[in-house]
């Protein structure tokens, strides 16, 4: 079941008014899509925080706008602590939507006991699916991942029916490889070592030109 988000119409626009809104514990949002008019809305920051904590991607709007909406884009501040703005996309049950879903690993790879390191190469996957079947996470089982092995898009366990993974179909998601040993580079000759200066000519070249 999707989360309910109460929305109000926002008449005062601009960054000054938006700052005031944030100080009052609310957030500016915008609703668009389906060829209908674009609406400026305000939502409760606490309400949105709860929805995000529950991993919601689809919300049920209540108030100034009705219907289902997708959390299309969320703007965070520099420190990723506070949401600044939310983009909501109108969706209907028969639509196909593109969403980014978190990819998680499940189990323990036997390759780790064989001296390997599990490299999680892809953390998010973009999928196209029905709004009602958006998964919270996707999982890959690494219980059979041996040293030198790799798991691809086809190995995703819980891809919803009818969902399509966008991007390369044979993309490597997880692999178990031998740990790379970084060779120790030679110490620089003394502390006076300096990088090469671009465009500076050597003394010999200067003399030759003279």
């Amino acid at each position, binding site marked *: 079941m999707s989360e309910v988000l109460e929305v109000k119409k926002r008449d005062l626009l601009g960054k000054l008014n938006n700052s005031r809104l944030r100080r009052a514990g609310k957030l500016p949002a915008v609703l668009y899509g389906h060829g209908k008019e674009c609406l400026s809305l305000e939502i409760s920051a606490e309400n949105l925080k709860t929805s995000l904590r529950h991993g919601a991607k689809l919300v049920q709007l209540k108030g100034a706008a009705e219907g289902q909406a997708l959390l299309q884009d969320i703007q*965070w501040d*520099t*420190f*990723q602590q506070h949401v600044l703005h939310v983009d909501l996309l109108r969706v209907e049950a028969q639509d196909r939507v593109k969403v980014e879903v978190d990819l998680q690993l499940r189990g323990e790879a036997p390759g*780790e006991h064989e001296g390997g*390191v*599990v*490299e*999680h190469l892809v*953390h998010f996957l973009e999928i196209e699916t029905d709004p009602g079947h958006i998964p919270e996470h996707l999982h890959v089982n690494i219980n059979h991942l041996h040293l030198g092995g790799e798991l691809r898009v086809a190995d995703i366990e819980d891809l919803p029916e009818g969902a399509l993974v966008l991007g390369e179909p044979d993309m490597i998601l997880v692999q178990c490889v031998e*740990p790379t040993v970084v060779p*120790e*580079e*030679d*110490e*620089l000759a003394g502390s006076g070592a*300096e*990088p*090469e*200066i*671009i*465009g500076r000519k050597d003394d010999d070249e200067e003399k030759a030109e003279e």
Partner: protein
Amino acid sequence: MALMPKRVKHRKSQRGRIRGNATRGNRVVFGEFGLQAMEGGWISAQTIEAGRIAAQQYVRGEGKLYIRIFPHKSITSIPLETRMGKGKGEPEFWAAVVRPGTVLYEVSGVTEQAARICLARLAHKMPIKVRMVKRT
């Protein structure tokens, strides 16, 4: 070995000022956990290296450590007991200019508990306030 550029256009640079927050390099991208700067400052190449060594022993064998900053800026100084004038000093060390919000290091392939210990060790080496962040 401490990091430094291979080629530069100028040996010396002006000091500059660190204004505003980081708008780039402020997200955990490569690993699962990261160390984010809460203040601005210069992080010297030696400090970056000291942090790497402190953290490496916790991730060696199972995880991977990523260094997200690079010392591009040369910092000059004049010798002690030198009279004023006679031009700018000689380059002393190289430093990375860090704005508040910059992710300094990242770790991957380790549990949250191990990452917490590793990044706490690393944080002790840093000359600025930092905090641990997770990939969002």
